C-alpha cells in the first residue's frame, strides 16, 4: 500500500469541519549530532508520545492538549505493567503488546545480545497528544528534556511518536 497522505487528508477533513487551514511546521534542513561511539557501546533511551503510563501512575488524559507531563519509567519494568490512554490513535494492538509502539522488551533483547551497550536506567513517556504551544515546547520543555538526557549520559535516544 502507498503511504497514507495524512497532510492532504487532514487538511480536507479540517476544512469540512469548518476549521481554518492548519499551519504545519515546515523545515528544509535539520540539525545533526553524530553518534559519539559504536552502537555496541551506546547507552540508549526511548521516548514515546503514545499516552503510555505505568499502572501505578495516573493514566494520561486521553484528550489532552498542550500536556507537558513527562514520565520517567524504570527501564526494567515488565512490558505488561503499562496502560494506554490516548484518543488520538488506535492502540488496540499496543494494548495487547506494548512493543508494537514502545519496544522496551526488544531494547532489552538488543542489550543482552550486545548489539547496544545498555538500556538507560530511565525511559520516557511524554510530549503526548496535541501540542499547539510550539514556542513553549521549543524554548522550555524540549531543552529541559535534552538537559535530562545529558545528565543521564545518553548516547542515543529512540523517539517514537504515536
Amino acid at each position, binding site marked *: 500500500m502507498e503511504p497514507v497522505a495524512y497532510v492532504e487528508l487532514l487538511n480536507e477533513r479540517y476544512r469540512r469541519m469548518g476549521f481554518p487551514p492548519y499551519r504545519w511546521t515546515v523545515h528544509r534542513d535539520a540539525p*545533526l549530532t553524530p553518534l559519539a561511539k559504536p552502537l555496541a557501546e551506546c547507552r540508549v533511551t526511548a521516548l514515546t508520545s503514545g499516552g503510555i503510563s505505568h499502572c501505578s501512575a495516573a493514566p494520561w488524559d486521553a484528550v489532552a492538549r498542550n500536556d507537558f507531563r513527562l514520565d520517567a519509567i524504570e527501564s526494567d519494568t515488565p512490558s505488561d505493567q503499562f496502560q494506554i490512554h490516548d484518543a488520538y490513535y488506535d492502540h488496540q494492538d499496543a494494548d495487547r*503488546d506494548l*512493543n508494537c509502539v514502545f519496544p522496551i*522488551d526488544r531494547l532489552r533483547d538488543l542489550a543482552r545480545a550486545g548489539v547496544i551497550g545498555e538500556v538507560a536506567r530511565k525511559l520516557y513517556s511524554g510530549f503526548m497528544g496535541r501540542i499547539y504551544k510550539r514556542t513553549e515546547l521549543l524554548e522550555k520543555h524540549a531543552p529541559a528534556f535534552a538537559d535530562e538526557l*545529558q545528565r543521564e549520559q545518553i548516547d542515543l535516544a529512540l523517539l517514537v511518536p504515536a
Partner: protein
Amino acid sequence: MGLVARVLEERGVPTVLVSTGRDLTQLVRPPRSLFVNAPMGNPFGRPGEVERQREILLDALRLAEADVAAGTLVDHRYDYGQGFRDRVETTLAAMTFQQ
C-alpha cells in the same frame, strides 16, 4: 516529536525517530527518521511479532550509526499489509477528534 528530536540534536543528543506518517515527518524533518508503512500505533508491527519488532528497532538504531545527511528519512521495507486500509479512516477520525 520531530520538533523534540531537532532540539535534542541541537543540544548534542543523537536521535532516531520511527515514523508511521511519512508526509507528516517530512514536513518537520527530524535529523534521522525511519518510516514504517503501518498504522499509527504500530510502528514496530503486530502483537507478538518478536522478530519483526526487533528487526525494525535494530534498523532504526543502525540508522543512527550510519553516515547519513541531516534530515534523512529512510523507507523501511516492512509493510503492515492486510487491514491497514481499513484503519486509515478510524485513524483520521481519532487524529481530528474533538471533545
